[in-house]
């Protein structure tokens, strides 16, 4: 009985030792390599933070209105962002190289997937970023325009614009990633069709009255504006 148990334990321990013998060297090398990459990442981040001013890039982001998208007041500093991105990129590369050292089927597949997906993830991220910028820019333009034109509910118009543009960006991003593309595309088509149908019904059923009320109120306001007109015309 004891002998059988010993044999079993020996088998298990042997298996573990075999696995350790096989995996420990690459694990040690991987940990060492990852530590080197961590140091490298910290070093690169420090160098970028200290050496690169990034003032031109800051100004470019501000000129393009991208700063305002990221921070309300638009005081974005590019250098820490670039340094942070470089830091994480180096860490990811270190982790992938470390994983590839194990040379198992699982790790190979993980590394392959990551390398294969990375460009797609970056592209999808850029699409989402561009979509967010465009959505914000267009929604603000719509907000100001509808307000200046005295249309009802400027904020609702702006919110609808933002949602629509972001939805298009999400559909495009999922298409790139291959993540349930048909579901998102179908949702987009259904939503778009629904909106058109709702708008048609709204205009058909209530539009005439609403437009009549709107025109009546405009006519009344115009009469009141006549007296005030002179103020607008004297800069």
């Amino acid at each position, binding site marked *: 009985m004891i002998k059988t148990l010993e044999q079993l334990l020996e088998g298990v321990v042997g298996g573990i030792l075999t696995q350790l013998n096989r995996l420990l060297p690459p694990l040690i090398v991987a940990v060492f390599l990852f530590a080197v990459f961590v140091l490298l990442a910290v070093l690169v981040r420090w160098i970028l933070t200290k050496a690169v001013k990034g003032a031109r890039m800051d100004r470019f982001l501000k*000129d*393009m*209105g991208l700063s305002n998208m990221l921070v309300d007041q638009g005081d974005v500093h590019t250098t820490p962002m670039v340094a942070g991105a470089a830091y994480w990129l180096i860490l990811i590369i270190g982790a992938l190289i470390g994983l590839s050292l194990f040379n198992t089927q699982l790790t190979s597949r993980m590394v392959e997937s990551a390398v294969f997906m990375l460009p797609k993830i970056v592209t999808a991220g850029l699409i989402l970023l561009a979509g967010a910028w465009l959505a914000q820019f267009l929604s603000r333009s719509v907000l100001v325009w509808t307000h*200046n034109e005295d249309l009802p509910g400027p904020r609702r118009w702006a919110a609808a614009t933002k949602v629509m543009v972001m939805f298009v960006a999400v559909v495009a991003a999922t298409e790139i990633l291959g993540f349930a593309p048909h579901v998102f595309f179908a949702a987009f088509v259904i939503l778009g069709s629904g909106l058109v149908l709702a708008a048609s019904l709204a205009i058909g059923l209530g539009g005439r009255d609403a437009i009549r009320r709107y025109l009546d109120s405009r006519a009344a306001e115009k009469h*009141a504006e006549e007296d*005030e007109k002179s103020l607008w015309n004297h*800069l």
Partner: protein
Amino acid sequence: MAVIQNIKQIQSMPAEARAAVDEIRRADIVVGIPSYNNSKSIGHVVQAAHAGLAKYFPRHNGIIINSDGGSKDGTPEVVTRTPIQDAQLLMLSTPMKPVHRLSFPYHGIPGKGSAFRMIFQMASLLDARACVVVDSDLRSITPEWFDLLIRPVLDGGFDFVAPYYHRHKYDGTITNSIVYPLTRCLYGQRLRQPIGGDFGMSQALLNRYLERDDWETDVARFGIDIWMTTIAVAEGFKVCQSFLGAKLHDAKDPGADLSAMLQQVTSSVFMLMREYENTWRSRTGSEPAALFGFRYDVGLDPINVNLDRMLSAFRKGAEDLGEVWKLALRPDTLAAIMALAKSARAPAFHLDDELWVKIIYELACTARGSRLERTTLLKSIAPLYLGRVASFVVESADMGAAQVEQRIEKLCLTFEDLKPYLIGIWFGEPANPPATPRTPAPAAELPEQLEV
């Protein structure tokens, strides 16, 4: 260089204008009148210009050029066919040189700036010693205006003559609340009507305008006036003012809306702030500009104001546009506006000077940065401006002209006192605490500025 510049100017001018320049060859004085559907009023302006040239400059070659934006009401025909009877009109006996009258449609972006550009190009090619531009809708213009706008250039060595008018207290509110105080504070010259629209210029300044490459911006529209004034004061040209009496004019294009006008004017101001940042950074205080002309009191057109509508626009703006204002205004400034909007009711409404100055400075800083969002931002500021005008209307309800002028002077001093704040947020430097607020001297103690 001058040859290249001339070639560029000739290329961008309409063919008929080029032909006229070739035929006339030279002129001493060019009077420019931009127009668009001004057939009812432009005849009077042309008559005044013709009489002014005949009476005050009989020995100079003068040309009146109408730069038209494609009027449908026969404005160019009125310009060329308005009868002039100088001898009877002015009781002249001395012979005088003939005054040419020309009218051409300008090319490019429709707007006052594009109209001026063609006039300047023609004046430059004709080697004119002085050029004067006047609005085509003026009802109070007289021949004396041309003497007052041209003589400082021809005989006084000035490069830029700005107008100085008597205006109703509610007239010129963009001038009084934004453009005059800001320009004065930035560049240190007290030109009271920087966007008056009626200016005299020397040949040197004219050529400087034509050298520039920003004609296709808001300068092509209502931004032209402040652009001309700012370049003159920022680049050290010799500037002065001439007292022209009252400014009475027809209503401008009814299709043009307030927010577009405000946007074009402020866009030009802020664009030039960026260009001349090193100039205004080093200038402190302000000094009066020389003032020519005999000053007298005049009757003025009444201006009707609907205070409730302005306050309602301010409240609605705060309700709708906070998201856009947030891009430009600091949190404490925005919070102050929002708090004010909540209780914006007629008799007690007050948007104080310091808050208003901070709003303008913070808008300027943001408009300098975000090129794409500048238009959106500047189109959103009409409610803020209306709030400020409403506050001024409440405050000045019982004020006379002298008191109103003192009130504007107080605002100007606040702009000047808070200039360190502007420098701080513009250049990212720590701002020095503003000096103790100054109060303007009482009207009776203001120095007499008349020189003629």
